[in-house]
């Protein structure tokens, strides 16, 4: 794993790799070099299997992290490339021509995170949701509980009690709480 990264390091801007396990490494790459690195990994280093492509919303840093995980079955190595995108301008580069199956992932990311991949087949078609008008649901600023409460009805009649408060009320309601 390390020597592959050494080879790549000479030509590309790699972040500090994180060796999660002997066979699994995470490394951040620049967006404009992603395609070249992926192609090289696929064609030269034997990372022929695109395990997954997904995103992580780091809303605090105003960034999306795209994770491209590629696997070399023969050497039993998995390399995950992280690409950071600006959250405001969430546009990624399609890799469906490298792995046709990536088109599905990109469709999902478009729908669930609102990250577009111009040029990816059918990327703007509805995938999982139907008639969705709210924020893309996997974004961190979409609150699923709030949405659910505003959209659907709970069965009424449920009340719960906090043991501490309940005991305060029943056992020592007249105790002057605190010296404040």
């Amino acid at each position, binding site marked *: 794993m390390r020597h592959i990264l050494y080879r790549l390091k000479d030509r590309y801007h790699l972040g500090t790799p994180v060796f999660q396990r002997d066979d699994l490494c995470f490394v951040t790459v620049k967006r404009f070099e992603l395609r070249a690195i992926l192609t090289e990994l696929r064609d030269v280093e034997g990372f022929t299997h695109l395990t997954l492509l997904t995103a992580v919303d780091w809303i605090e840093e105003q960034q999306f992290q795209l994770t491209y995980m590629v696997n070399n079955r023969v050497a039993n190595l998995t390399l995950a490339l992280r690409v950071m995108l600006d959250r405001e301008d969430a546009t990624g580069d399609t890799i469906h021509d490298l792995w046709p199956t990536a088109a599905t992932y990109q469709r999902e990311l478009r729908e669930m995170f609102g990250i577009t991949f111009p040029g990816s087949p059918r990327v703007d078609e509805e995938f999982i*949701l*139907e*008639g*969705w*008008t*709210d924020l893309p*649901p996997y974004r961190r*600023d*979409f*609150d*699923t*509980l*709030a*949405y*659910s*409460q*505003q*959209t*659907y*009805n*709970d*069965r009424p009649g449920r009340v719960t009690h906090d043991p501490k408060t309940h005991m305060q009320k029943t056992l020592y309601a007249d105790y002057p709480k605190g010296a404040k």
Partner: protein
Amino acid sequence: MKDVDDKFLKNPDTEVPLREELRPRKVTTPDGQEIDIDPLRDYFCEAKPKVHPKAYSKIVEDFYNWARANSLWILGFGTGCGAIEMRPLMTPRFDAYRYGIQWRPTPRQANLLVISGYLSVKTLKRAIRAYEQMPQPKYVMGLGSCTINGGMYWDSYNTIKRLDDYLPVDMYVAGCMPRPEALLHGFMELKRVIKEGKGEGANLYAENFDQYKANQKAVIRDWDMPDYNW
């Protein structure tokens, strides 16, 4: 609605545009004729459901109910998790057929819709359609926690929480998921209810049709079907 932070308030006004193929348009037929079509009107009958009247005589009605109870034909539409426990019921081990219960592939032949657990909004739309296509008298059974009060998807943005908001439910079976034996219990209980003449779900639907429709439309944002399709 409970207290929701302003930034999570949803905007209910956004319209979902009608799908292209469902828009009214001019079409040239193979023989060169030009015709206007409006798919939503042309392909469906829009009559509202009617309340199914009881038979004049109690004896006759009782006989009908006995017959109905003993031929529960289930629509083989696996809407959620619980569908996986249908297969054991259909096969010899649990053999629901001996109780007059069988599965049909099309709504036209079925009188019992089993909602097997959670319903995503997308499936709800299909389930409503399937339900409305079933001939009266018809029944709905809700399986598992999800149909009662949202179950483990109580905070999901994509599943309904109470099935009875959208469809009239005649029987619930608790469990997550309910075992085949519990399902059989549910069927037996449903039979009893029907025999007592209390299986009135379909009439309830007809009576409160507008309310059901309002509820359905509140969650199905791309309502691209007529209000009642049978």
